[in-house]
């Protein structure tokens, strides 16, 4: 086979870059089909020279396709390998190519959504946001750079993996590695979610539970302190010795809750939201509702 048709590395890089725009013409009829055809064009140009062949190839790749945009890359790789064989005369028909695409897109979407949307993005997002809230510009930069390094690397290597493994990829992917990644990601995800719920869901109750008048000697008696710096020094020493700053000890509802475990109210709110979601309450309704609750509770001095 002297003049066998092969896709060069440059073609594959071009396909990889175009796969960035996979969802560009997302539509309710065939979903990612336009972007898929657009992605395949460098390969079609290389492999098919006649107008009829090109037309057939374009039509073949305008069929229905939809998966998570990043895990489409291994499917693209496999399809490239199949197209290459077909162009070289192997009996790969349209149904085989469409079958591989459809067969892979479902299970892969099941990996892509939890790993990228529900583990990597919330973690990097929360990390970036926590820096941004303190006015640190590194927040968005870290988020943007890390995310795109992970994404671009993942898309290139899985596309190459798919291209080299050809149609065997579905067998490889059903093996243990994929399961490990999914499970590991959900463990990490749940762990981080637990800490995020604690740190970032802020529910603060203001009502005062008790006001206890402290006995004499348990608080700093400001009137009896010497004037000037000497007085400040004395006050600090008394505070260090455990004396209260105020003659009345105020305990808020929040302090009571926090003494159980900090973040308890936030946890309960999160569990309530999960329950409501399972009851098919729209997230939008819940978001707007929580704003209303915030305003009302603030007005009645509960928060």
């Amino acid at each position: 086979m002297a003049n066998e048709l092969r896709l060069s590395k440059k073609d594959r890089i071009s396909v990889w870059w175009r796969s960035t725009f996979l969802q560009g013409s997302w539509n309710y009829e065939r979903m990612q089909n336009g972007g898929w055809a657009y992605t395949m064009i460098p390969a079609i140009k290389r492999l098919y020279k006649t107008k009829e062949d090109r037309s057939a190839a374009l039509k073949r790749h305008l069929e229905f396709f939809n998966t998570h945009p990043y895990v489409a890359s291994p499917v693209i790789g496999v399809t490239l390998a199949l197209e290459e064989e077909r162009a070289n005369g192997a009996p790969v028909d349209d149904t085989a190519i469409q079958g591989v695409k459809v067969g892979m897109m479902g299970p892969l979407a099941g990996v892509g959504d939890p790993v990228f949307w529900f583990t990597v993005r919330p973690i990097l997002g929360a990390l970036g946001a926590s820096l941004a809230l303190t006015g640190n510009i590194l927040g968005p930069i870290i988020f943007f750079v890390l995310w795109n390094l992970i994404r671009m690397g993942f898309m290139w290597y899985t596309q190459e993996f798919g291209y080299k493994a050809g149609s065997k990829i579905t067998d490889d992917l059903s093996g243990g590695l994929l399961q490990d990644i999914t499970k590991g990601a959900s463990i990490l995800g749940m762990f981080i979610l637990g800490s995020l719920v604690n740190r970032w869901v802020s529910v603060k109750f203001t009502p005062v539970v008790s006001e206890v008048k402290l006995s004499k000697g348990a608080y700093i008696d400001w009137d009896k302190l010497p004037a000037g710096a000497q007085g400040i020094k004395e006050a600090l020493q008394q505070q260090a010795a455990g004396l209260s700053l105020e003659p009345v000890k105020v305990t808020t509802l929040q302090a009571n809750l926090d003494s159980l475990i900090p973040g308890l109210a936030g946890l309960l709110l999160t569990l309530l939201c999960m329950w409501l979601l399972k009851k098919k309450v729209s997230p939008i309704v819940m978001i707007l509702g929580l704003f209303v609750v915030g305003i009302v509770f603030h007005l009645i001095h509960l928060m």
Partner: protein
Amino acid sequence: MDLNIIQIILVFIVAFLAGMEGILDEFQFHQPLVACTLIGLVTGNLVPCLILGGTLQLIALGWANIGAAVAPDAALASVASAIILVLSGQGKAGVASAIAIAVPLAVAGLLLTIIVRTLATAIVHFMDAAAQEGNIRKVEFWQITAICMQGLRIAIPAALILAIGAGPVRDLLSSMPLWLTDGLAIGGGMVVAVGYAMVINMMATREVWPFFVIGFVLACISQITLIGLGAIGIALALIYLALSKQGGSGNGGNSNTGDPLGDIIDSY
């Protein structure tokens, strides 16, 4: 504050990028953290917009496009609220009210997304026709048109807000009473829970709940940063995977009673 012409063009470009990314979901220009910061950067309001972006990001953590479903539109919410924050000239003080505006906008953006996705259905029919002719350039042209349409989805509303100008926006924001903005800020602290709840519902199984508990309790130790927590999480995941494999091979041939202590006693 009023923007000069170069700033307006830059804001328009950022809005366009955010709109594209709202559908592409690749570079993440539509995430509040990035979009708000970029708007802040080009308008010289970096720090307030950065804080707005961080706050919105926490609310939007769980928003994702899954299958055919569309999440609330982070792109429109971030771009529009950042522009409003900049125009109001309130700086950091305006963040709470900007967030209050962002959430309804996210819902409105949802409608725009659905409209554009429906329009895109027509575009793929043009692609079909181009494919029939074997015309590669035409297929590419329509793909790019569709992407630009998504960009304009955010860029046009952004331009509208800019066209209305700083005056009305500032009046609107300053007419908001204090109880309202404070209440909204309190609500904003709680709204985050909805995003987490969505994510947890997707991932939670009996097997991984204990890790949630560990994470929750460890987070009480405020000295551990998020990076530190991430490291612990990765370590736990690796340990769990390694141990569950050992358990699997060890129990393969043996009597698998699920009671390790009982097994040890039996073998004595």
